[in-house]
């Protein structure tokens, strides 16, 4: 088990290098003029040249890449042309907001998706199941940004129940930064008013983001529960007179969840790289917005940094999923 972990962590090195290489190649295809943009509209040629030199953009690409990878080893993700701040620092500021959003959305999706999936599997082909299937496909088909707009329209504008966007009310001070997740920090500080406000702000974007993973988890859980229900050990459990609840949770639920874990892992990574649209709609100060701004100004270091960090988290989550497999299913062995 430890060896398995160690081996998987060793694999991170090549992943990092490969990921940055891909992004570097794309970044250097740039026909545009990021330096010109960063230098400002009134800069002279000499000023631009100085800026290019400052950021090493005048050197050959392979040289830039090598020094980037060397920096990577020290945890240095380069500097942003636009903000001129170290990318690692910027990401440290924006990442927690995105993580908070994704975690909340996934928590919602899992908490609802797993039991609903199990239930619809039990009601297989009866009307609640069919309705659930249609709704689930509908949820997957709903563009997240349109859903976000509709939620905003209804809950924030017409009903005025929930705030329009942002992470906290403007005048509320964020709680002392421990984890960077506002809700968690507020709870840690015992600041219940702020926690409440943070949750209210989190509600709509998390809902908008959670719908499609919720539907996917529901469908996967349903499918694997149906598959499990056809297994001999379920029939055996029934034939041996086990109570329904026990069969449902210990036998069907547990075995079906292990297949659903993969979907959860995949979706987590996918959401992490796909919060951009929801963040845009809800004005959520997260990584997606940071990346969008960087992309639009062709400021590649932040983009590479964001791709790297989300890629790493994706890998980490999938590692966690693999470990969770082992906890649920003893047949999985780590070799």
């Amino acid at each position, binding site marked *: 088990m430890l060896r398995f972990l160690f081996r998987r962590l060793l694999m991170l090195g*090549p*992943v990092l290098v*490969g*990921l940055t290489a*891909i*992004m570097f190649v*794309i*970044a250097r*295809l*740039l*026909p*545009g003029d990021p330096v010109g943009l960063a230098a400002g509209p009134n800069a002279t040629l000499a000023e631009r040249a100085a800026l290019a030199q400052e950021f090493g953009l005048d050197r050959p690409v392979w040289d830039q890449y090598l020094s980037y990878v060397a920096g990577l080893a020290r945890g240095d993700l380069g500097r942003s042309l636009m903000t001129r701040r170290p990318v690692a620092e910027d990401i440290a500021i924006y990442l927690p907001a995105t993580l908070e959003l994704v975690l909340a959305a996934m928590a919602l999706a899992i908490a609802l998706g797993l039991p609903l999936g199990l239930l619809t599997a039990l009601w*297989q082909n009866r009307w609640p199941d*069919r309705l659930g*299937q*249609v709704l689930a*496909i*509908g949820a*997957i*088909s*709903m*563009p*997240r*940004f*349109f859903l976000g*707009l*509709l939620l*905003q*329209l209804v809950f924030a*504008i*017409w009903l005025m129940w929930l705030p329009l966007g942002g992470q906290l009310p403007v005048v509320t001070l964020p709680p002392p930064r421990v984890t960077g997740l506002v809700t968690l920090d507020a709870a840690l500080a015992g600041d219940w008013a702020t926690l409440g406000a943070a949750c209210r702000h989190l509600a709509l974007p998390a809902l908008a983001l959670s719908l499609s993973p919720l539907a996917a988890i529901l*469908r996967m859980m349903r*499918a694997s529960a*149906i598959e499990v229900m056809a297994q001999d050990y379920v029939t055996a459990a029934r034939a041996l007179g086990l109570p329904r609840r026990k069969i449902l949770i210990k036998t069907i639920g547990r075995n079906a969840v292990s297949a659903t874990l993969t979907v959860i892992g995949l979706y987590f*990574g*996918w959401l*992490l*790289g*796909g919060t*951009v*649209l929801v963040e*845009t*709609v809800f004005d959520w100060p997260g990584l997606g917005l940071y*990346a*969008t701004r960087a*992309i*639009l100004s*062709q400021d*590649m270091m932040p*983009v590479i940094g*964001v*791709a790297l960090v*989300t*890629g790493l988290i*994706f*890998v980490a989550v999938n590692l966690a999923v693999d470990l969770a497999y082992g906890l649920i299913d003893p047949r999985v062995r780590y070799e």
Partner: protein
Amino acid sequence: MTAGTRPPRPAARRPRALRRFGRNRLSLLGAGLVALVLALALFGPLLAPYPAHVAGGIDTAARFQPPSAAHPFGTNELGQDVLSLTLAGARASVLAGFSVVLIGGTTGILIGGIAGFLGGWIDEILMRLTDLMLIVPNLILAMTVAAVLGPGFQNMVLALALGWWPGYARLLRGEVLAARERPHVTAARAMGASQARVLVRHILPDCVSPVIVKMSLDMGFAILMVAGLGFIGIGVRPPVPEWGTMLATARAYMPDMWWVAMAPGLAIFVAVFGFNLLGDGLRDSLDPRGGR
């Protein structure tokens, strides 16, 4: 289920899948919606009540008119008929989605097929690359490439296709590997059939169904991604109407001029919903292993 490359087949195989598909009312609904969307993609501009607006014509005297008989979905910030733009917008969305799936799918199929069939170090290299591409966040990759290349239909398609193929490569490699182990393939190898014959005659036909299912499901997803890029502002060029771009523009006028957003938003939903239902139905009837 496979394309009819072989002599006529009186057998019940295809009809059976068809019958199974036909029995599912939701699949039929999906097929109907897809047919509608495809029809719009082909004839949308012709059906538009204000074709001039589709070509970029404006009517600044009639800006922001609420829904009425003349403009069922109202008019936008330039006085253009929102219904006309939405109808015509199907073309860009569907065509882009289709191209993305086709290009990404073909690339992925080639890569995955080669990797799975040849195995060895080629497989190793191709699959490591695939794994790597799967880790890169799709949307960020697409946005970056689209931003680098600049807005425009082809650039958008290219940007999305670049992140699209790994899924197919994985799928096809898995299918090829599974098919390679199937006894009928071993039988073909044991009788001395050539590599090419084994691949074309025995392995690839086995992989067609899952690919078709994935493509159909991916169409919906691709349309969503296209709209997402448009929403961020990296989409087609004006005056070409496109749903995501329309929605992005319309968003600035919510909630007072809500109608500008409704038609394109619903259009995206309906199109994606249709393809998803269709893909789901196809999976049920073609590929009983997945889904129910």
